[in-house]
């Protein structure tokens, strides 16, 4: 059973990624340029969480929180 908080966080990250890819028509490479390769990999893990492909451990939460912040800033630009 995936923790509700991390699932919620993952869904929010997915929303930011969707915004960047579809509304801002950015490519993954452009997002990598703006953030980092590591952040984009972690953002993709958020998608893996909501698709129930992986079972996250608590240690992932604070890491995803940082990605969430970075994405929020990028979307707001």
């Amino acid at each position, binding site marked *: 059973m995936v923790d509700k908080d991390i699932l919620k966080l993952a869904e929010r990250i997915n929303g930011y990624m969707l915004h960047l890819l579809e509304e801002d028509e950015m490519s*993954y490479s452009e997002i990598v340029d703006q953030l980092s390769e590591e952040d984009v990999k972690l953002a993709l893990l958020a998608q*893996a969480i909501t698709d129930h*492909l992986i079972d996250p451990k608590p240690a*992932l939460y604070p890491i995803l929180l940082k990605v969430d912040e970075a994405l929020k800033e990028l979307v707001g630009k």
Partner: protein
Amino acid sequence: MNSIWEADPFLEEIKKSNSDLYIEYLNELTHEIESATDLCRYSKTPTEILEVITKKHPERRSMILAHPNCPQELITWAIEKKELTEAVIKSPVRISGAVLASLWQQADKEERVNITSRIDCPTDLLMDTWNLDYSDDSLLLNLQELVIGNIAAHPNIPKKLINELMRYDLNIRCGFEYRSLGEILLNNSAVPDEVKALIAIQGISKQPDSTSDEKGDPIYDWPSNCAYNYKKVNSKFREIFNALGHPESILKSSETITTNTYNSEIVLQYWAIGVSERIYECLWPELSNNSMVNFFCNHSSYDGDSTYVGIGGLDLSDDAFKNQLSDGDRQWIKGEAILDFQDVKEEFAARSFNEFHSDERSDDVLISCAILEKLDDELYTLNTIGEKYILDSGNEEFQDNLTYRVSVIPNPSQDVWGVLDSKRQSIIMSVIEVALQSTDTKFLKFATYLGVLIALNPATTKEFRDRLRNLNDDLIKQALGE
């Protein structure tokens, strides 16, 4: 040895020795659409046979129009009925000026421009096409560029148009080959020397004609093969071709082998370019019993499909040792192009995330790659849904250029080497022996390859092992275990 055949040696042999039989055979092939199609592809099929095919198989009219012996009646019919205009324009057959004029009248502008590429296009049609309005040309369809190129290269170019073209920038690219106007004019023998001198002054020089070395399409399918490929063809023709030493007669035990000598070069080339799979169906299956031997299949969108033999300790990596067969529909080559989870992990590990996102791979691939790359950080565990997801995306992503093991089993319609009688085995050996004297590297290598396969075959008798030994080829000796 040429890499393609100019003509079917067995059919041409019959034509020389018995013209009635030759026509009888060709008529036999006109009955079925498949064999008739093979005749349409063969440049030496006579007009009278093409006339028969035109009537029996109207759906092949377009192919016949492309044939150098196309009947004039078909061209007249197509023009009268306003059918197959494009095929008529491209037809290699000479068409009279009057007939071309009537074709030109009914053609649209693009077709009229294409008519000027015909060597028999008369001067007045060149002028008329030149005078058409090209103001609606677009970037994608620039007919004026084409007509300039066609007319500049034409042997019937009117003097008036030569003068006209000389007012153009001679460096503009035009025509189907997109060469400079000056170059095209220099290559045209109808352009006077004094005009050519003026072109040369502008620093343009004559370039070799790129079309002069062009040959026709390769002939991989001889009409004589139809006697073996199509069951409805009267079996007496197979006997006739068998007696002439057709390669198909060697490997199939139900066919009669000739007492005359087989032409080694023709037979080896027939096997080497993969016209028939019989040689592989014959020499491969028994090798499966050898634990040193593995068969592999490779699917590549760039190189095509190929199946090949891998033998521990022997270097058979040369392209000449790979055929163009895939496991596809073949019942005698079995294998599955599926990667297991470990294979997929290895394929992902061999590339980087950066590579995948730069190449704009699918979301599935990027997510799979991210999951695998971060897996060791112990921030999550991969569940069975995730494993299946990665497995599927990996198989989709790495399908191209995938090499995997296949098994080769005997095909019931082809005797394997060990079952062939010694006469047939001896013919195969003779083909190899003669080919190993060849100076053509490609066929020399292929002969070596066949020798290796026979050397590795547990059913090869002492007599043939001795013959192989006497060939003095290092690779064959290695295969013999020496």
